[in-house]
């Protein structure tokens, strides 16, 4: 049987796991501190 050149594999459009992990790690790495300056974000990385 010949190759079907019209066949296109359906790929899902979604972010890589790596990207999601980065976002989740970022969320865990920042802390909000109430200071005299108001609420500030501190990146603990």
């Amino acid at each position, binding site marked *: 049987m010949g190759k079907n050149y019209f066949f296109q594999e359906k790929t899902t*459009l*979604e*972010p890589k796991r790596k*990207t999601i992990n980065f976002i*989740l790690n970022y*969320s865990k790495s*920042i802390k*909000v501190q109430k200071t005299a*300056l108001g*609420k500030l974000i501190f990146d603990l990385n």
Partner: protein
Amino acid sequence: MKKPIIADSTLVSRYISGHEKSLEILINRHKQRIYSFIYSKVYDRDLTEDIFQDTFIKVIRTLKLGNYNEEGKFISWVMRIAHNLVIDHFRKNSRIPKFENSHDFDIFSVLKNTDIDIESKMIKDQILGEVKKIIELLPDDQKEVLIYRYYNDLSFKEISEKTGVSINTSLGRMRYALINLRNIIKKKNIILTS
């Protein structure tokens, strides 16, 4: 038995109160829709990943700072942020975005979208507010010259007349004010980017 679906608003509240897992649920719930939307504008996988990531960094920062106003749906808010970042990307690259009507956005939302302006303004105001608080920490003579220069738009000649010191002294105070501002920002690890 099927688990009941937790509403986005509940997950947002839980996340704000420290339940990190809620963010993961929200991302997994909406990732395809947000990712597809970004991809439909930029047609580039790597760029889509970057914009997707930046979108959620903005989401996280806004939620953690307690600046999220729960007036609309969570997903609409996130989509607006993504949309804004896509526009920023095209502006930076001086290209005209290819917008097509879809169920998420139509061309009229690009031509006239006051919500996006409001969001940008909100972020800008937040940054300016933080800068003002840092300025308050400067010694009075440095604070004075910086405020006259940047907020009142006075020349150094006008500043020297108002404060009764020479132009050179005003320039020196400004220099120290900027050095001190940088030091405070660095020392406290303050993030001032939007």
